[in-house]
C-alpha cells in the first residue's frame, strides 16, 4: 500500500509538513542530524581529498614532508597519463569491457526477468535461487578456472573475456532488480495489449519497456558499478593488450621507488567515470537503491 498515498497534491504537503515540524521542535535534534551528516561526509571526502592533493604535487613535495595542500600545483602527473598510451589505453580497456558487460547483462536479463515476474514454471524458484548464489560467488574461486576456460576458447586478453566473466555476477543481479520493477507493473497491462492486438515483441518494446525504464536504468547502473570496481577477474583474464586501468596502476612501483604523484593522479582519474555516472542518476539514487522492492 506504499504507492497509493503519494498522489499528486500530497507532494506539496509532504514537503511542508516536516518544515513545520522542524520549526515546532526544539533546535538540538536538527543540529544533531546536521552534525552526523557533516562528520560522515567529511570522513568520506578526506581520503579522496588527500588523493587529489597528492596528485597535484611533485614527488619531491610528497616525500619531503606533509603539506595539507599543494604548495606548487603541478599537472605533470595528469599530463603523463594522458600522453602515455600505456596509461590511457588502460582507461579505454576498462570502459570497453564495462560497457560490453552492461549491455550484455541487460539484454540477457530482460526476458528472464519478465518470465520470473509473470509466470510460474518448472523449477523457477530453484533457478532464481541458483542465479542469486552466483551473485554471491567469490571471484577468487573463479579466477583460475576462468583463466583456463577463456584461454582454451581463445578469448584470453580480450575485453570479451572480462565482460563475460563479469556476467557471472551481473546477470543475476540485473535479473533480480528488473524482476522487482516488472512485478510492480500490473499484469492487466500485458493482457490489455494482447487484446488490443499487439504482438509480444511490439508490446514489450513499445509499451512494457517505457514502463520499466527506470528499472533498466537502475540495473544498468549497478552492472556498470560492479563491473567497474572489480579487479581480480579483470586482472587475471588480461595481460598486455586489454589491461584494465586498475591493473596498470601497479606499474608505479618501479626500481626508482614509488611514483606517488602518478599513482594518485591515476587513482583520481578512476574516480571520475563513477562520479559522472552518479551525477547523471542523482535523482534516481534513492529509488534505485530500493531496487524496486520497497
Amino acid at each position: 500500500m506504499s504507492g497509493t498515498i503519494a498522489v499528486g497534491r500530497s507532494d506539496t504537503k509532504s514537503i511542508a509538513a516536516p518544515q513545520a515540524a522542524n520549526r515546532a521542535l526544539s533546535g538540538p535534534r536538527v543540529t544533531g542530524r546536521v552534525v552526523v551528516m557533516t562528520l560522515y561526509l567529511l570522513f568520506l571526502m578526506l581520503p579522496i581529498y588527500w588523493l587529489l592533493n597528492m596528485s597535484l604535487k611533485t614527488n619531491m613535495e610528497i616525500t619531503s614532508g606533509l603539506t595539507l595542500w599543494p604548495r606548487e600545483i603541478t599537472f605533470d602527473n595528469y599530463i603523463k597519463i594522458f600522453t602515455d598510451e600505456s596509461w590511457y589505453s588502460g582507461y579505454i580497456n576498462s570502459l570497453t569491457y564495462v560497457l560490453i558487460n552492461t549491455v550484455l547483462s541487460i539484454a540477457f536479463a530482460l526476458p528472464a526477468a519478465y518470465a520470473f515476474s509473470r509466470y510460474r514454471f518448472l523449477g523457477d524458484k530453484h533457478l532464481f535461487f541458483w542465479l542469486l548464489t552466483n551473485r554471491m560467488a567469490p571471484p577468487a574461486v573463479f579466477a583460475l578456472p576462468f583463466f583456463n576456460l577463456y584461454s582454451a576458447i581463445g578469448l584470453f586478453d580480450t575485453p570479451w573475456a572480462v565482460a563475460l566473466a563479469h556476467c557471472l555476477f551481473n546477470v543475476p543481479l540485473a535479473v533480480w532488480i528488473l524482476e522487482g520493477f516488472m512485478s510492480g507493473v500490473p499484469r492487466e497491462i500485458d493482457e490489455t495489449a494482447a487484446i488490443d492486438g499487439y504482438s509480444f515483441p511490439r508490446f514489450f518494446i513499445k509499451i512494457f519497456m517505457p514502463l520499466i525504464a527506470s528499472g533498466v536504468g537502475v540495473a544498468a547502473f549497478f552492472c556498470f558499478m560492479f563491473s567497474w570496481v572489480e579487479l581480480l577477474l579483470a586482472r587475471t583474464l588480461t595481460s598486455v593488450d586489454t589491461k584494465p586501468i586498475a591493473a596498470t596502476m601497479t606499474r608505479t612501483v618501479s626500481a626508482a621507488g614509488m611514483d606517488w604523484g602518478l599513482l594518485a593522479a591515476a587513482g583520481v582519474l578512476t574516480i571520475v567515470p563513477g562520479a559522472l555516472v552518479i551525477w547523471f542518476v542523482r535523482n534516481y539514487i534513492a529509488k534505485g537503491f530500493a531496487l524496486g522492492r520497497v
Partner: protein
Amino acid sequence: MARITLDHLAHAYKANPRTAEDYALKEINHVWSQGGAYALLGPSGCGKTTLLNIISGLVRPTRGRVLFDDLDVTDLSTEARNIAQVFQFPVVYDTMTVRENLAFPLKNRNVSRERTARRVEEIASLLDLTRVLDRKASNLTADMKQKISLGRGLVRPDVAAILFDEPLTVIDPHLKWQLRSTLKEIHRALDITMIYVTHDQTEALTFADKVVVMHDGAVVQTGTPDELFERPAHTFVGHFIGSPGMNILPCRVEGATAFVGTSLISLRRTYRTLSDGERIELGIRPEFVRLQPKGAGLPVQIRRIDDIGRARIARVEMSGRPLAASIPDGISIEGNEASLVLDPNHVHIYANGHLVAGEATGGHAA
C-alpha cells in the same frame, strides 16, 4: 474540549506569497463552537486538509492565529495541543497488537495502566474490535486498520477536538454507513468537537450539524444542511451540493425581472445594486423547477429524461441553455415540447458567483 477560533488565518506553501493565487488557503475567520459536529466539504485540492493540519498543528499557518478557547496555540506543537486526528489512509503501528495500538496515545501521555485498559476496551467495543484486540495489527484488512486509526483518535477522552480527514475512503460502502452512525453516536455521547473533512456531500450532510463548504482555498458558506440547500451563498455551493446540482443560468436583471436569453422570469425581490461589469447569474434547484405539458410557462425542448429512483429529472433546453427540471408525479409529456414553472421563492440571483440579497418588492417580505 474547547471552542476553536481561526483568526485571519491564511496559508501558502510557497515562501513569500504575493498574489492571492499563491495561497493554498485564503484568509479565513471562523469559530468552531465547543461540542459541534462539523463537516468541512469541498472538492479535492480546495484546502480542506491544509486547514485541518493547521488546526492540529501539523502545518504552521503563514498568517493569522489559531485559538483554543482563549489560548493562542498557533506556535504550539501538535503534541502540546491535545488534539486527535484520523487520516485518510490507515496508519497502524505494524509491530504492535491492536490493543497496543489503541493504548499508544494514552501510554505516551502517561495515563495510568488501569484507565488505559478500561478506555481501550470501551473504544474497542464501540468499533467492534474486541475480537481482534490481541492480534497483530499488520495482519488485518484495510477496513480493520482504519478502524484502529479511528480508535486511536477516539481513545483520548480529554481532547480539544477530533479531526477526521476523509476517514472512510478505504472503507466498504456498507460499513461506511455503520461507522458514520457510530461516529455520530460517539459525538452525542462525548460532547467533543468533531471536524470531518470530506468531498462527499452525502457524508457531510448526514454527519454534520453544520457544514463548512470550501472552494479554491476559501470558505464559501457555513450553514446547516438545510441552509446550504435552500439558500446557497455561492453558485459553487449550489452546484456542488444536491444531485443534480443547481441550475445556473447567465442572465440580465432589471429591477424584479430576469432575462435568460429570450425568456422572462419575474422575481420576488428587486435588484438595483447590480453593476454592468459583474457576471450576473440566476440560480434555481431542479427540485423547484417543474416540467409541465406545453402551455403556460417558459417554453423548453426536452433532451432526455433521467430516472434517478426517487424522482424523474428532465434535461431540457431553454433558449439554447441546458437545464434540469423535476417532473411531478402523474405527469406525462408527449413529444419534445414542454413548459417550465419556476418557484419564485427559490430563485436566487448571483453576482460574480456570490448571492445577492436584493430588496423586498412592495410588501413582499422574504
